[in-house]
């Protein structure tokens, strides 16, 4: 009888910490999203779901939803595809492959804000080295981050540059776990390179791929630093993702209620998308 409680006892420290540091802040966020600033002696006014209904009627919010989805629809497949490709290349048994592995992981070691600032200097439309190269090659200079059509793609590029090496590490670990005997057996059965990839590598990679897909999606939905540092959500709100709009609501527009409501809606959105991803990538092995 006693033994039944033992596992829970062991789980308790982790559960308590999760409750304090994860569940409580979310509950607090939920509570904040029901209040509006009152200005008198710090007394905030309870407004029910006004912050939410306000958001639903606000085209800036809907535009942010669109930008967030647009960004993720492109950045996630690009990152995961490239990371998988990179992992396959890095898994090749070549002389000196260790050196290539190290080089491709360098962006991981650069902090994102520093990377953003360096990219910003290189992409400066008036002074940047990118435009000097373009002009040198006979192309016309580009506005990059100052153009509402290019800015989001530049951020996708920077996020990918930074992220691919990181996610490739997980996939590389997964690839190295695939038993060699399966490849040998498949070869003996007459499977070509493509068959081996489709019938051996891919099914056995579903678990690491699921992890990478889910973790990458969450990371990108919550990505904030590049927009904050490079574009402040502009030009014309073209990079104003939900995280940026939430930050601005809290710390620029003095409206923590609206900021919390955005974060709660973002949380629901991410949960829905991740539920979908689990369903699609469910491993049958």
């Amino acid at each position, binding site marked *: 009888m006693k033994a039944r409680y033992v596992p829970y006892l062991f789980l308790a420290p982790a559960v308590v910490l999760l409750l304090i540091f*994860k569940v409580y802040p979310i509950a607090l966020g939920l509570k904040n999203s029901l209040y509006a600033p009152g200005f008198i002696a710090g007394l905030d006014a309870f407004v029910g779901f006004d912050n939410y209904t306000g958001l639903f009627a606000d085209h800036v919010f809907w535009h942010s939803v669109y930008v967030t989805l647009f960004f993720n629809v492109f950045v996630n497949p690009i990152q995961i595809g490239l990371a998988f490709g990179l992992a396959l290349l890095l898994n090749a048994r070549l002389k000196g492959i260790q050196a290539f592995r190290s080089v491709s992981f360098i962006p991981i070691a650069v902090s994102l804000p520093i990377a953003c600032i360096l990219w910003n200097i290189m992409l400066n439309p008036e002074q940047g080295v990118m435009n000097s190269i373009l002009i040198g090659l006979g192309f016309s200079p580009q506005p990059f981050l100052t*153009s509402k059509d290019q800015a989001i793609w530049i951020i996708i590029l920077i996020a990918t540059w930074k992220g691919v090496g990181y996610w490739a590490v997980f996939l590389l670990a997964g690839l190295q776990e695939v038993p060699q005997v399966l490849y040998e057996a498949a070869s003996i059965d007459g499977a070509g390179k493509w068959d081996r990839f489709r019938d051996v590598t891919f099914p056995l990679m579903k678990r690491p791929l699921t992890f990478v897909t889910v973790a990458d999606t*969450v990371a990108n939905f919550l990505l904030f630093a590049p927009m904050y540092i490079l574009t402040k959500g502009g030009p014309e709100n073209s990079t104003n993702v939900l995280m940026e709009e939430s930050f601005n609501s809290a710390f620029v527009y003095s409206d923590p209620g609206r900021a919390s409501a955005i974060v709660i809606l973002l949380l629901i959105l991410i949960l829905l998308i991740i539920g979908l991803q689990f369903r699609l990538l469910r491993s049958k092995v």
Partner: protein
Amino acid sequence: MKKSLSALVASILVLTLAAGCTSSNNATPASTDTAAPGTEAPGKKPDSGTAEITMITLSDWDKHGLNDVIAGFEKQNPGIKVKLEMYPFRQLFETIEVKLGSKSKEYDVVTIDGPLVSNYSAKGYVDPLEPLLSSRDWQSKWIESSIQAGTYNGKLMAAPMNTSSQVLYYNKDIFAKKGIAPPSFDIDKRWTWEQIIDAAKQLTYDTNGDGQNDIFGFSFEQIGRAYQMLALSESLGAKPLSGSGLTATGFVNSEKSLQAAKFYSDLYNTWKVSPKITAEESGDFFATGKVAMFVGGTWNTGKFNEAKVNYGIAPHPFFAGQKIATPTGSWHVGVSKYSAKKEAAAKFIDYLTVGEGSKIWFNGNHDLPSNNDILKMINDDKKYDQFPDNIYRIATYEAQHTAVPRPVTPGFLEFESLFNKAYDDIKNGTDPKKALDDIAVQMDRQLKKYESLAK
């Protein structure tokens, strides 16, 4: 079982990352936290009789006179040490929101942009200053407009460090090279914006033959910032907000405001006489001879002298046949409501704004003073007839005759952020009408929450 397990794992993962992110919002942005040299001996804690106060302020001000002010203050007040925590322009406002919004006790002295005094007062970030100030004669010490900017609901909330004014700097070498007569120093021969554009078109050219202009005719200093941009619409007679400071539609996007925004847009997109750079880069562009004319603050002389630019000074331009309007207003200092050392903080503010510190600050920062004693000194001292100190002759005139303060509204932070965003977009090619109409709606929504404050 497996399904519910994976769902659990997924939810925990999302919760973990989402919560991690929300909490990072509350974290301090990377600070350039620098203790002023001489204020804190490393490894030595201030003894029990010493109070240490912290001032949150703008980057580089330690080098522009604030350290000297602190040294003087600490000499007079051996019991008080002053520590600086400095942030770049935009991050300063955000840090204040984060820290004072969460009632942090970290700061004692808060640096406040003039128009934000009412915002911070409404939000309860600062305490009324008057009962704390030891100088009783401050009312006669500062110019009226600076006192007004520091007052909310009839109470002095923040003391002016200085006010400000803008002049037209021009690069003599570039003018000579193109054979164009430069603008005059004479207030009565002030150039119009039309004259500026005419000259700027001739002064924008390519030096290395790559087909890209690398010398530009004109640039603002505070590119896209309300402080400087509002002088354009004010010159055309437009007000950015209603009298109550709570309505933007019909004001920030009025016909005349739009005309000013179009002019700004044309500088970058039609005439292409201004480089598409940021406010942080503009001073360096003039200092390195890439810009022929530059409307900027008096504080730039130090930088331009150091860079050895061959420059001249002229009064701020205006639209032909219209009103002359120049930017004004500047930084104030207040005592944080959550400070535990309010008296020591007020003592420092007193020294910095009324006492000897105000002169040390003027000598280091080169801004236009709010302090009447220093203004009188400028007026009387023959030294200020000579270039480049004669810049204060123009600045003093503008402050008295043409200066137009920024709008008075408890929602200035929201107003300014959206205004700056619109002007940034306009610079990058957005249709001015669309940009202004968009922010007018957003401003109205953001300003609505302050209606309860209006009596």
